[in-house]
C-alpha cells in the first residue's frame, strides 16, 4: 500500500429530488474519504445508508448535490477515468440476450485493447469465474449466482486498477463466497485497489484493510480494521506453567515479568460487535460521529478471543 490517493471524496453530498426538484431523500451527507492505492476498502452500513449512492457518485452515474469525487486525480464526470476502473453493480445489469462470451467480448470492445488480448482475457475470465460450461448460454437462463459471476468477470475485463464491488458476495454459494474473498485478496496482492460494500461482516473483516461505516448518509467510523477492532483499555494475558500462587499474584508476577509470558495484548472484538454498537449508538444519538464510542462500548461487552 502506497500513499498515492486513488479515490477521494470531498464533502460529497447527495440529495435525491423528484421531477419538480423537491427534496426526497438526503442519501449522503458531506462524506470525506480517501482510498489509497493497493488497499481493500470496505463501505459498511445498514440498508439505505448510502453505500451504493457513494459508489454511483464516484463513478459519475450520479451527479453530486455538493462536494466532489475525484478518481485518479480526475473528476468523476470524466469518462476517461473508466479506462482503469471496474464496477460490479448491486445487481448484475447485463444484456440478457447475450451469452457469456458475447457479454465479455462486448464490454471488452469498449476498452482499448487488441483483439487477441481481448479473446484471451474473455477466455481466462470465464474460466476464472467458473462459467466454462455455460459460456454459450444466454444470460437470461442464468441463476442469480451465475449472473453475479459473469458480472464480476465483466468488471475485470479491462484488468482495472480500481475495482468497485457493490455487495460482491450477494447471491453466491459458500464456495463462491470463498472464491470471491480469495480473489479480492489476490487482486490486492497484484497491487490493485478494491472498494467494496457488503453486509457479510465476517468477510469484510477477513479481506478489508480499512473500513468506513455509514449510517443514514453520515460517516460514523473510519479506520484500519485491526485498529478499530482493538479494545484499547483491556489487556489480555496468556500464560503457561503458572503456579496457582503465581496466578494469584498475577499482577505482581506480570509486573516483575516472572513466568513465561506467552502473550500480552489487547483483545479484539468482532466487526459484527463494532458495527452493531455503532448503529445502535447512532440511532440513539443521531448526528454524532461515533469516534470513541466503539472502544468504550466494546469494553462493556464480553471480549471474545
Amino acid at each position, binding site marked *: 500500500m502506497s500513499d498515492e490517493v486513488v479515490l477521494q471524496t470531498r464533502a460529497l453530498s447527495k440529495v*435525491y429530488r423528484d421531477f419538480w426538484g423537491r427534496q426526497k431523500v438526503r442519501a449522503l451527507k458531506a462524506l470525506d474519504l480517501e482510498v489509497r492505492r493497493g488497499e481493500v476498502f470496505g463501505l459498511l452500513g445498514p440498508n439505505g445508508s448510502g453505500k451504493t449512492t457513494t459508489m454511483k457518485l464516484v463513478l*459519475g452515474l450520479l451527479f453530486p448535490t455538493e462536494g466532489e469525487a475525484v478518481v485518479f486525480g480526475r473528476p468523476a464526470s470524466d469518462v476517461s477515468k*473508466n479506462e482503469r476502473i471496474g464496477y460490479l453493480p448491486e445487481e448484475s*445489469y*447485463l444484456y440478457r440476450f447475450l451469452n457469456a462470451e458475447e457479454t465479455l467480448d462486448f464490454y471488452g470492445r*469498449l476498452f482499448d485493447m487488441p483483439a487477441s488480448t481481448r479473446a484471451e482475457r474473455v477466455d481466462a475470465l470465464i474460466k476464472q469465474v467458473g462459467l466454462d460450461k455455460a459460456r454459450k448460454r444466454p444470460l437470461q437462463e442464468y441463476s442469480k449466482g451465475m449472473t453475479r459471476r459473469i458480472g464480476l468477470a465483466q468488471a475485470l475485463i479491462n484488468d482495472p486498477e480500481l475495482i468497485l464491488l457493490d455487495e460482491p458476495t450477494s447471491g453466491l454459494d459458500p464456495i463462491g463466497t470463498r472464491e470471491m474473498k480469495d480473489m479480492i485478496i489476490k487482486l490486492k496482492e497484484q497491487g490493485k485497489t478494491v472498494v467494496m460494500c457488503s453486509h457479510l461482516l465476517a468477510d469484510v473483516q477477513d479481506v478489508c484493510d480499512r473500513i468506513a461505516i455509514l449510517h443514514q448518509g453520515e460517516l460514523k467510523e473510519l479506520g484500519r480494521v485491526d485498529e478499530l477492532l482493538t479494545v484499547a483499555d483491556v489487556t489480555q494475558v496468556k500464560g503457561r506453567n503458572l503456579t496457582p500462587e503465581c496466578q494469584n499474584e498475577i499482577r505482581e508476577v506480570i509486573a516483575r515479568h516472572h513466568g513465561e509470558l506467552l502473550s500480552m495484548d489487547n483483545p479484539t472484538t468482532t466487526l459484527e460487535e463494532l458495527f452493531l454498537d455503532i448503529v445502535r449508538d447512532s440511532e440513539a444519538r443521531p448526528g454524532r460521529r461515533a469516534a470513541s464510542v466503539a472502544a468504550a462500548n466494546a469494553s462493556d461487552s464480553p471480549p471474545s478471543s
Partner: protein
Amino acid sequence: MVLERQVLPYFTWLIQGEPGGLGALPRFLLVMFGVGLAALLIGFLVAALRYGFSRGGDLTYRTVYGGFFELLQTKWRRVWALAVLAIKEARRRRVLVALGVYFVILLFAQWFLSTDYPEPARLYLSFVLTATTYLMLGIGLVLSAFSLPSDFKTKTIYTVVTKPVRAGEIVIGRILGFTIVGTVLLAIMGLASYVFVVRSLDHTHRVDAETLTNVMIGGKLQGYDGSTDKVMSHRHSVELDAEGNGLAVLDRGHTHNIDRVGEDYKVSGPIGLMKARVPKYGKLTFIDRNGAKKDSGISVGFEWKYRSFIDGNTQAAAIWQFDGLDHDSDDEFLNLALIVRVFRTHKGVVGRPLTGTIQLRNPETGVVSAERSFSARDQQIDEFEIPRALTDPKEEPIDLFEDLVTKDGRLDVIVQCLEGGQYFGFAQADCYIRLPEGDPRTNFFKVNLSIWVQMVIVIAIGVTVSTLVSGPVAMLFTASFILLGFFRQFFLDVATGQEYGGGPLESLVRLVTQKNVMVELDPGVGVSIVKAIDDVFQGFMWCVGQLLPDFRSLSAVAFAADGYNVPWDRVWQDLTLCGAYVVGLSILGFFLLRTREVAR
C-alpha cells in the same frame, strides 16, 4: 406531380439554394447555431435554477467545453461494438417479423391491385413503394424509440457508461446499428417488391394469325397489320415487316417485340413498363397579350404561385429556352414533352380539347418552324417526337438542328393557346426535352434509397429523443415529428401567417365561435390577446418548422410511379440532408445523454 419543383444542381442547392432562398449548408449552420444557442440557454437556466447562478454557469461552461473534447475522442471501435449490440437487440426483438408482415401485404395486394389500368406499373409501383416507406418508417420508429429507454429501465446502461464510452458513441452506435438492420430489411423488401411488380405485370400475348392483313404498297408486300389476343385486359395492335418481325404497338405503357419463328410468332415480355424518363429543362419566360416580354404570365387566382398563365388567341406565349443541345447532332428526332394546366373561363365546345401550338425558334437568327398544333389535356404529359426535317411558316424546308439550334446549343420552344378566353398555365418544369431514358432498375434503387434516407432520419430522431424520455413518450414524440414533417409546408405557412384563419389559438376561437376563416374577428381586447399569444406561438412553430424534415418532399415514390428518373443531384441532396440530420441529432443526443443523470 413529380415535376412541380425542379431539382437544383447539387452545389447550387448546397451553397445558394433557390433564388431568394438559402443554401442547404448555410441553412444547416444557422439552424445548428440557433439550436446550440437555445440549448445553451435552456441548459444554463435549468442548471441555475437547480444549483444557483454561478455554479450553474460553471456547470454549463464545463459541459460545453468538456463535451467538445469528448466529441473528438469518439472511437470507431466502440461505436461499432455498440452498433453490433443494437443489431443483436433488434434481432431479439423479432424485427424480422416485419418481413413477414411485408410479404402478407404483398399477398393481399395481389388481390386488389388490378392490371386493368391505363398505366398498371404506376399503380403497382406507387403501392409497393408507399407500403415499403410506411413500414420502414414504422420499424425505424419502434426500434429507435424503445432501445435506450429500455436500457435505462433495466439499468444495463450502468455497466455501459461505467466503461470508457462517450455518450456520443452510444447515440451514434444505436443509430448505426438500427440503420444496418433497417438497410437489410429494406434491401430484402426492395428486392421482393421489384420482383413482385415485374412478375405481376409480366405477360405475353399470342399474335392472332387471323387478324393479320397484308400491307401492300405499290403491289409489293411491305408487311402485316393485325392484333394480339387479349391478356391482362388489353390487346395490342401489331405491326410486322415482310419477314414477320415487328412490334406490338404501345398500349398500357408498354410494347412487345415480335419475332417470327417458323410459322409461329414469338412475343417477348412487356418492354418499357417501368420508365425512367430523363427530362432536360429550359428556362421559362413569357410574352404578354400585347407582345411584351415578362418574367411571368398572369395569375388566375389561388393557384400554384409559381405557375402562371397565358391567355388564348392573343400574342401571349410561354417561351422555354434550352441550352446544351448539339448543333451537329445526328439524331432524327427531338423528343419534347409538355404538360399543360388548362384554365377555362367558358366551356368552349363541349367535349373538344383546347388547341395550342408549338413552335421552335432559333434564339439568334430568329428562324422559326411552322406552328404545330396539339390538343391540351389538363395535367397530362404530351410527348412529341419532332422530326429533324421541318418547314418554316412559308413552307420552306429547314433542319431542326442545323437551322434552329444555335452553334452554342440553344433553342427556343414557343407555346401559345389558340382559343380566345381560355388560358394555359405553365411552370418552368412543364416543358422539357427527353434525354435518353435511364435504367428503371437503377431508378428503383434510387427510390428505395430515398426511403432509406427517411428511415435513417427517423432512427436518428428516435434515438436522440429517447436519450431524454421514456420509450412510449419517445415514440409519440418522434411520430409527431414525422407527422409534422409530412405537413411541414402547411405547418410553416400557419407559423408565418400565410394560411387563412390566423394562428392556432385564433383558429380555435374561430372554431368555437363558428366564424369562417375569411371574416375579420371583431377587434377588442380579447382578440388582441389571442393574437399576441398566437404571435408567440407562431414564432415557436416557426422555430420547430426549421428543424422538421420535409418527409413529403423526401419521398421519391412519385418519380418511380410517374416514370421519371430520379436525378443524381437529388440523390446526393437527400443523402447530404440525411447526413446533416444524423450529425446534428447525434451532437444533440450526445449532450442530452451526457447531461442526464444516469442512475436517477
